[in-house]
């Protein structure tokens, strides 16, 4: 089924690889190897994805009926708060960069490791420390501020574990700052000879843009969280209007990070899609420079649109105008990417392997997610749509429909590289389709609910909204199954999967030219790069040479 050029002889796993150079728990916990750290991250984020997913399941179950009958209001508030916090800080932000990026960026640019292997390990420990804070606050009774920590609710009015959770966000933030820093330095300083900026795979460009956002944006979140903590603990009054503070200031600080954060989440996913679309259409990405620069444009414009979360909050009409205009501008690079990916298919030679199915899912869902963003960026419609289920549907289309699809595309695409084995092809395609269908059923009704006016974060709702909520909950069940299947067959494939060989997809990236799973040092000798990214003619030539030298 795969598009690989299958050699006649039986493939075997390489004798030496990064898994079997060292054994034992400590060899993992003290490792500096970017691939091992990536695997540590993969386990951790998958675990927390299912924690967050369980919360989502509880939310949908509660919303099956209009009455608040499954749990108490406070419990519901805690559940959606933790769903948001866990999914954003423990899954979406680190998902592609910390796993796939960590594993692949050094190999893609022809380096033996990231620039700072120990800081890379520190990132993972910070992630775990932050996650532990969330777990502690969860065990101690949870937190119910919403993931947005809106003041003065979070500083004066709730009586839950705001400080513990805030410390968790603060620490987890530094994990992503360090990852970003590591990527930026690595991409600048450690490219192999001949690997110029415009020969970099688009995955690297996308992660580079996301890294800039991580490094520049996350500290502002840290500041905001510290101020919330000081206000809560000592009542310093920065955000308290009775002390002359400004509650809107918090929103400005918070969204100054949290809007760019959505680009931190989506950009690496876009990088994955570029790789996958190119590989399975056997064609270089249409308009390489446009796609690369659109990532950078998103990163730059992404910093100047934060107040579009605040149109109805008494922002002056004229500043709302400016932020709306900039929001429209930031939508354009995403449109450019979508059209470039579509055009990449033109005159390609397309095969529909699992990663490609997920990538198609991404294109469809991200297009809807992006276009509904225009509804919210446009000032007049935002008044009606904001704070309703429309916004919930919009960001789930982008984050789950977009990012999670991209993550799954990436995991399926590089799984053979990471483990050396293939997963069952048929089952994985079924899972991709189930995910897509389940997703549409879960989140599309929420657009209609939003226009009807159903507010987000509601524990109970008027009975006329029930039909759409039932559809959404039914869809969520299907979606849940769609996410469980890959976990099962991927775990199965680690032991029983067909051996993949070094380049099962016949892809051009440097990572596919080395053995899978790779050696600890990635390359036996540092490659000299003399071709552009996605150069299939170069690959064909190379394959022919190899066959000759063996024969």
């Amino acid at each position, binding site marked *: 089924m795969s598009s690989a050029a299958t050699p006649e002889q039986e493939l075997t796993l390489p004798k030496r690889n990064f898994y079997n150079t060292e054994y034992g728990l400590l060899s993992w916990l003290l490792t500096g190897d970017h691939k091992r750290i990536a695997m540590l991250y993969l386990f951790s984020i998958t675990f927390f994805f299912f924690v967050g997913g369980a919360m989502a399941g509880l939310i949908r179950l509660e919303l099956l009926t209009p009455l608040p009958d499954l749990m108490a209001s406070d419990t519901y508030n805690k559940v959606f708060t933790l769903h948001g916090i866990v999914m954003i800080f423990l899954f979406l932000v680190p998902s592609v960069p910390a796993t796939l990026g960590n594993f692949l960026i050094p190999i893609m640019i022809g380096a033996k490791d990231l620039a700072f292997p120990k800081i890379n390990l520190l990132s993972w420990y910070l992630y775990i420390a932050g996650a532990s804070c969330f777990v502690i606050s969860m065990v101690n009774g949870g937190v119910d501020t919403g993931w947005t920590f809106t003041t003065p609710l979070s500083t004066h009015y709730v009586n839950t574990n705001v400080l513990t959770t805030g410390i968790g966000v603060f620490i987890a933030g530094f994990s992503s700052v360090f990852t970003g820093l590591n990527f930026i330095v690595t991409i600048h300083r450690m490219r192999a000879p001949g690997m110029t900026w415009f020969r970099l795979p688009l995955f690297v460009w996308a992660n580079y843009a996301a890294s800039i956002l991580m490094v520049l944006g996350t500290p502002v979140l840290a500041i905001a969280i510290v101020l919330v903590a000081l206000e809560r603990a000592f009542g310093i009054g920065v955000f308290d209007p009775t002390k002359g503070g400004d509650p809107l200031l918090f929103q400005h600080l918070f969204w100054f990070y949290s809007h760019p954060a959505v680009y931190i989440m989506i950009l690496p996913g876009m990088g994955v899609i570029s790789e996958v679309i190119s590989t399975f259409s*056997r064609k270089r990405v249409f308009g390489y420079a446009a796609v690369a620069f659109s990532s950078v444009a998103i990163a730059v414009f992404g910093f100047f649109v934060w107040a579009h979360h605040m149109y109805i*909050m008494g922002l002056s009409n004229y500043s709302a105008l400016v932020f709306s205009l900039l929001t*429209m501008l930031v939508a354009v690079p995403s449109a450019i990417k979508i059209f470039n990916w579509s055009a990449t298919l033109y005159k390609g030679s397309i095969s529909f392997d699992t990663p490609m199915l997920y990538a*198609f899912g991404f294109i469809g869902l991200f297009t809807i997610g992006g*276009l509904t963003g225009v*509804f919210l960026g446009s000032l007049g419609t935002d008044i009606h749509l904001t704070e309703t289920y429309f916004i919930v549907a919009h960001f789930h289309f982008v984050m789950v429909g977009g990012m999670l699809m991209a993550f799954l595309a990436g995991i399926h695409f590089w799984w053979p590289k990471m483990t050396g084995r293939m997963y069952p092809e048929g089952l994985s395609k079924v899972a991709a389709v189930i995910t897509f269908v389940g997703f549409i059923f879960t989140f599309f009704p929420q657009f209609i609910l939003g226009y009807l006016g159903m507010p987000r974060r509601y524990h109970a709702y008027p*009975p006329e909204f029930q039909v759409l909520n039932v559809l959404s909950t039914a869809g969520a069940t299907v979606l849940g199954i769609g996410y469980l299947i890959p976990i099962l067959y991927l775990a199965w494939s680690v032991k029983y999967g067909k051996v993949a060989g070094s380049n099962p997809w016949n892809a051009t990236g440097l990572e596919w030219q080395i053995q899978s799973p790779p050696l600890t040092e990635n390359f036996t000798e540092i490659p000299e790069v003399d071709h552009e990214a996605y150069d299939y003619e170069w690959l064909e030539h190379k394959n022919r040479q190899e066959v000759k030298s063996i024969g």
Partner: protein
Amino acid sequence: MSHISPVLWQFLEKWLANSSLFPAEASTIAPYTDALYFFLILISLIGLVIVALLVGTFSVLYNKRRHPVAVQIEGSTLLEATWTIIPLGLFLIAFVWGALLYFRIYNPPPNAMNIYIVGKQWMWKAEHPGGQHEINALHIPIGRPIQLTLISQDVFHSFSIPAFRVKREAIPGRYTTVWFQATKVGSYHLFCTQYCGTAHSAMIGEIIVQTPEDYQAWLASSVSGASLAQNGERLFATLSCNACHNANPDSRGPSLANVYGSKLQLVTGGSVQVDDGYLRDAILNPSMHVTAGYAPIMPTYQGQISEEGIISLVEYIKTLDSNYRVQQTLNTTEIQNQKQAPATAPGTTVKP
């Protein structure tokens, strides 16, 4: 179809009757919002269809079996420009249209009737100018522009009326406004849409749109004594505001007659337009803006007046067009003070 299962059928029928897919259009703004919404849906559909057609057609035409060898194409500046400029143009139309709508929704007409809304955990309190107040409900007449001046007593809330397509955040410490004009008699949902703690989803209510006659009848039947301005006057005397703000030649505070809506010179040299928000700040945080010619001696009333009290005071100051009654009240107070007991230390207020 009903032969499948009558029970199931009835269930479905009841469900569909109870479910709605599109909200009622009950304000003058609603059709404008819906028009923009449909335009956005249209461009989204066109965009989505184009992308789906491109991906679908290419997937069929260039799949591996039919097209085994890919043709390498670098890119095309012309195409890049096309799919940059056309979406940009469409987004800019959405921007301009949306901005016009936003200005329409958030700039109330001058003849709008003002109702105050105070949000608090977890209820909405509406204060009508005539002194009628209601909780989690708002009665309004049809066909008349209504302005809401919102404030929150504690955390952020958001006042949302989906059938009117309007929404405005109620913020602690500052007034926000929104306006609408209802076009259909009926009862509509009022939601708090900003997450505000435990009973957020119970912070709901009803907007009751009535004919002018019914509305008058409701007003008449719901009077609870004094109007907002009358309450304000009482508070003005109780808090001894008139001790300084009395327009006497030796008064320590500026006269408040006709101050609302005027432009005030400040000691800092700047000037400020007097509106609800300014008056509120002047009461709670007097040293923020001091009127030119006066010393910053006014004490803060932070924590001494409820939001409703401030609203009454603001309403009272709005109605002040002379200082006659201020001085009358002051005289009465002074006479009473002299009569009662000279032992009372000067400066202490007499609570009525």
